[in-house]
């Protein structure tokens, strides 16, 4: 039998899902495209580029591998640092070598997971912070052209956060011995893809 609290949580989750499913119809009826379109283009942006997607999953994997406090510091601080990078992108300020650094971030973060690298917390946070600024910059540069800029921002923050959660969820396999190898292998796959992406950018 299902625990009462679990059932209540499921009911709330069901209501939220239902609300989200029903959402677009009235919103679209009031202002064609605006809110929904902005949200979807923002949500899709981190998912459309393999470099963003792999790097964000790698952040989650690495966080889970490092354990507390890195595991919870990353999802809490990453979006804010990313938003500061996004601010640079929105304002159109210059940031050197955006595409190469983003490709390199997939390579380096993947390699860190593969090697189960455990640097000092400050080093890990600084490294991830620099990459957060670059990823935010790339998403932010697209924001001024969005149908609804707030909805675009909400979409890309939500999808980036979801990618972290996916990474952390996979990374939690780390607590079993066989899982450690699975997590490191996933890091290896991301690192190899990073090599390809970096070579493609620098070509």
């Amino acid at each position, binding site marked *: 039998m299902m625990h009462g609290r679990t059932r209540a949580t499921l009911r709330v989750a069901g*209501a939220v899902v239902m*609300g989200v499913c029903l959402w677009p119809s009235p919103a679209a009826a009031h202002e064609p495209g605006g809110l929904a379109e902005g949200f979807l283009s923002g949500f899709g942006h981190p998912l459309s580029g393999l470099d963003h997607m792999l790097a964000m999953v790698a952040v989650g994997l690495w966080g889970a591998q490092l354990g507390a406090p890195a595991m919870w510091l990353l999802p809490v601080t990453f979006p*804010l640092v990313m938003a500061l990078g996004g601010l640079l992108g929105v304002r159109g300020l210059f940031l050197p070598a955006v595409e190469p650094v983003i490709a390199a971030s997939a390579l380096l973060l993947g390699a860190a997971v593969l090697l189960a690298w455990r640097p000092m917390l400050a080093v890990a946070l600084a490294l991830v912070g620099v990459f957060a600024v670059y990823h935010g910059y790339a998403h932010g540069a697209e*924001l001024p052209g969005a149908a*609804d800029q707030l909805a675009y*921002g909400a979409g890309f923050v939500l999808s980036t956060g979801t990618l972290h959660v996916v990474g952390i969820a996979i990374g939690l396999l780390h607590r079993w011995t066989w899982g450690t190898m699975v997590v490191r292998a996933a890091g290896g796959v991301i690192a190899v893809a990073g090599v390809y992406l970096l070579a493609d950018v620098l070509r």
Partner: protein
Amino acid sequence: MTDVAWLPAAAASVPVLVAHIVPGVTDFYAGLLHPVTAVEHLLTFVAIGLLAGQQARGVARRALTLFVCVLLVTAGLAGAHGRTLHLEGPLLASMVGVGCLVAANWRLPAAAVYTCVTAVAALHGVANGAELTPAMAPVRFVAGIALAGFVVMTYAVGLARRAEAPWAGVAVRAAGSWIAAVGVLAWGAVTR
């Protein structure tokens, strides 16, 4: 809390159907939907609810009541005053501020929580109430705004109060940080 669980879904689907059948109810639904379909209001309401939910039980309950009352009064006053306002900057600043407080997860003094709740409710009440047009019935529109604020904040308080597991507490903090991040980005776009 679960008894009102289906309200947002119902609110999202019903107005289009009901508006034309019951005369005058359109203004109520316009008020109800206005804060919920604008990202800067919706996310700030969620954030202030999470902040209240992170506090002691009594503080959270009084903050919820205070929020709805201030929202009702300020929206009514702004609607009666009837002037177009440009509050994008302060609205987004409130979103960033409250989001950061949720991410920090401090147990604040009760007075600080009430001050914060009052300021946010007044700002968002004025911004929502100012959207009232002469053709609308002010009481119905303002009642809709207050109900939307009540429902959204109740959800958020409930979620934060239920976050007992360590990961759930982190999820609440992450939500605050995500809301602040959206505010920072939108602020960049608005003030460009």
